[in-house]
């Protein structure tokens, strides 16, 4: 690639992070460090019933026996778990009954992020649960949803008000002993979103959680639980941002999805945590466990993710296809630039008969970043007629980045059809030439090609967010045309 192109490349990939501001607001924090007392304190602060405290302590004790796994293709500086503040909440506690009571500073913050909490100015038909640091600030449209019998609230509320549902499903997909970060999350999670869609109900609007880290030195540990009962449908979106800081902050979330018979869950993520600066200083460590189970027959779970932020991303939204005829999809665009690292992918576990899964993963790496796809497709002995198709493409922009593919295929049934294909290449000079020839500048051409490349995934996002994601893609790659 010649020098001019390199320059354009640099321009395109060096966009600034728009959400790096800090909200000046009184924050209540607890002292740094992690021990049983901290777990008890968090539980007490949330007025949790006894069973939750027991559950947390069990997870904490198990976590103490674990060491951080090292198998990912990531270089992670040592994390001192005693140097993190495990609970931080904007003061003025309590759930706001009406919007007037919400700190105007907070409202402004979410306005700035494009997430109006005022229902009149709502994002076309989207109910939002806004989470700042450790607590949920406001959940919009609760009443409208409640009319249909849909429960959409913060996790802490759900624990207090719907303990039976929580008891039944919390940890049923990602057990507290699942892995290092899931155990940590189970012990100290502070809030998150809870949603239950009853039998036969089609959720009338998009549900959404917006996560914002604000306080310094804190970790964010939220927990999301979504249950779609028989025949229900829900589409859910999560977004996230954080201020620009020099130190790294840890985000270890757990998301559990449960789809009963004939239910469908669509879960979309636009992840835009602060990725660190151009020298790789600062940024969020995004270590997330996401898993869904197609419990009933004919159920469907679809994961869509656009990953542009975080210094280090380590997550594998997975599906357990337990019900017969159930299906699962995973669509992902992961963009890494500068010093970012990502090791992401999915697991599809086929257990039921006639189960189908589809994986489409598009990696784009630029700058000095490393981007890996890691996935497992497992067909167990009883999974008759299982079908999987995986496609993992990688696009390299610049000669100093890395792109890797680590798929695992484990097939234990002769009726299964499992296919995987992957390609790695850079943007073809002939493609650029074709555009140039038609009067399209190299910069625009790269934007065009990258967007076309990611289209298959972006198309899966709810409309309002597809536009945002497309812009985000352009910003993340600003300065990296090649």
């Amino acid at each position, binding site marked *: *690639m010649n020098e001019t192109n390199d320059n354009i490349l640099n321009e395109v990939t060096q966009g600034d992070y728009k959400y790096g501001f800090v909200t000046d607001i009184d924050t209540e924090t607890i002292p740094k460090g992690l021990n049983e007392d901290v777990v008890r304190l968090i539980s007490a602060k949330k007025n949790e019933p006894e069973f939750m405290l027991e559950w947390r302590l069990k997870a904490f004790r198990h976590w103490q026996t674990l060491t951080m796994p090292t*198998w990912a*293709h990531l270089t992670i500086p040592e994390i001192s778990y005693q140097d993190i503040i495990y609970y931080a909440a904007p003061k003025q506690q309590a759930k706001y009954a009406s919007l007037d009571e919400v700190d105007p500073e907070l409202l402004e913050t979410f306005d700035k992020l494009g997430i109006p909490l005022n229902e009149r100015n709502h994002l076309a038909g989207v109910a939002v649960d806004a989470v700042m640091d450790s607590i949920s600030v406001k959940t919009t449209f609760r009443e409208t949803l409640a009319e249909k019998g849909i429960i959409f609230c913060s996790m802490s509320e759900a624990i207090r008000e719907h303990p039976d549902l929580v008891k039944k499903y919390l940890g049923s997909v990602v057990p507290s002993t699942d892995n290092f970060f899931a155990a940590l999350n189970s012990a100290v999670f502070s809030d998150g979103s809870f949603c239950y869609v009853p039998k036969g109900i089609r959720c009338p609007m998009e549900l959404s959680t917006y996560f914002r880290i604000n306080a310094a030195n804190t970790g964010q540990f939220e927990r999301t639980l979504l249950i779609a009962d028989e025949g229900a449908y829900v589409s859910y979106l999560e977004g996230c941002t954080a201020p620009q800081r020099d130190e790294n902050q840890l985000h270890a979330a757990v998301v559990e999805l449960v789809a009963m018979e004939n239910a469908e869950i669509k879960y979309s993520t636009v992840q835009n945590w602060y990725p660190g600066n151009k020298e790789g200083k600062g940024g969020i460590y995004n270590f997330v466990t996401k898993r869904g189970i197609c419990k009933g027959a004919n159920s469907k779970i679809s994961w869509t993710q656009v990953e542009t932020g975080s210094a280090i991303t380590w997550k594998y939204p997975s599906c357990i296809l337990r019900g017969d005829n159930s299906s699962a999809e995973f669509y992902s665009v992961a963009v890494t630039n500068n010093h970012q690292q990502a090791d992401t992918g999915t697991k599809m576990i086929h257990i039921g008969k006639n189960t189908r899964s589809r994986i489409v993963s598009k990696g784009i790496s630029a700058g000095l970043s490393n981007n890996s796809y890691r996935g497992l497709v497992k*067909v167990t*002995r009883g999974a008759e007629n299982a079908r999987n198709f995986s496609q993992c493409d*990688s696009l*390299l*922009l*610049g*000669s*100093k*980045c*890395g*792109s*890797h*593919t*680590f*798929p*695992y*295929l*484990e*097939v*234990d*049934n*002769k*009726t*299964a*059809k*499992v*296919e*995987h*294909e*992957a*390609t*790695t*290449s*850079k943007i073809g000079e002939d493609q650029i030439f074709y555009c140039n020839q038609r009067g399209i500048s190299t910069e625009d051409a790269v934007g065009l090609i990258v967007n076309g490349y990611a289209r298959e995934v972006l198309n899966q996002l709810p409309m309002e967010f597809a536009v945002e994601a497309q812009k985000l893609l352009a910003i993340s790659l600003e300065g990296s045309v*090649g």
Partner: protein
Amino acid sequence: MDNTNIYTALYQENKELLQSLSPDFLVKLREDAMQHFIQKGFPGKKDESYKYTYLEPYFNNGYNKYLSPKNIQFDVNEIFHCDVPKLDTHVILLVNGFYFDAANPLKTLPGDVIVGSFAQAVKEYPELVAKYLGKYTSGDSFVALNTAFSRDGIFLYVPKGKVVEKPIQVINVLISDEELMVQHRNLVILEPNSQARVVVCDHTLSPNKFLTNAVTEVYLGENATFDHFKVQNEHNDSVQVSHTYFYQDKASSLRTSTITLHGGLVRNNLNIKLDGEGAECHAFGLFVTDQAQHVDNSVFVDHAKPNCTSNQLFKGILDDQSNGAFAGRILVDRDSQKTAAYQRNSNILLSDEAKMDSKPQLEIYADDVKCSHGATVGQLDEDALFYLRARGISEREAKLMLMYAFAYEIIDEIKIEPLHVRMADLIERRLRGDLTRCNNCAVNCG
């Protein structure tokens, strides 16, 4: 489980013997390898590179281990009674890992090509061997074990610009009246602009349990061409761990095929390092398994320099309770621009209990590259089967035809004509179940 001790003890017992037979450089290599092995031990159940094949239990006390050749009585003519028709080769025989023709350990072929016993080459050409031996092998525990103990094997040296016209055929015979462990070491050196073809076949002549841990190193100089073909045809009580390292200099060209017809447990590690611009390699593999067999092919291709091409095609047909595994890793180093790397792994499962694990991997650090991989696990195409049935072909025949067509893609890559014909025939008989055990050298069966 810890079987490391068995080998540390064996090493201590035989240290003097090994040292008395080895020049200084080899003594040091053995010592270092043993230290490395003690430190690392056998790969555990969770070791990523041996994820699907746990080997430590096989490296137990149940096998006799000899560091000097044992006198074995058998009829040599029995082995050579028929050749591959029209295949004219230089034949070399290894019996239980030791060079057989003791009276004539190193032969000189036309063009000053040296071929013969590795042990003898260590004695006669220590400098040449020292220059290459173990230079590019990896830190694998089994390789270290082999370096520490292996005494003999095949040595081949092709001088600059020389072409070995006839293929060299290496026959590995395992024959014993007791359970036996065999570790042999082969070294092939091709100087710049030289060419050679080697056909290797492994087979067992007695029903005893065998454990083989073999290492082959091949060095291709600038512009050298090497054609390597290996047939594995051992009985179902045998365990074979085989490591092959190819080091390729500028513009060298390699073709290597491994065909596994029979074997109890087979693990093949194939390592190719493309360390010169314009080098290219083609690696092929095919296995047919039934009963409780287990075949694991692990391939690592390192594109260390720009402008290299690699191509891999590995296939498997699995029946009964057999297990198959494939791991293929392509690494493209930071400055290896203009790399083209392809890899494909396709497998057919014929029975409910058969299991296949596939792990194709790409690790790429350069941007101007074209790399792709694909993996499939499936069954015979219903439509194709129906097409054949509709034309009056019995189900059994139709299935055989489809399996044969699936396997033929690999056989088609065999460029030595008589061998091609022979393998096509052998594969067909293997698929029909007629080839139950090899009676003789794999390429002579029948």
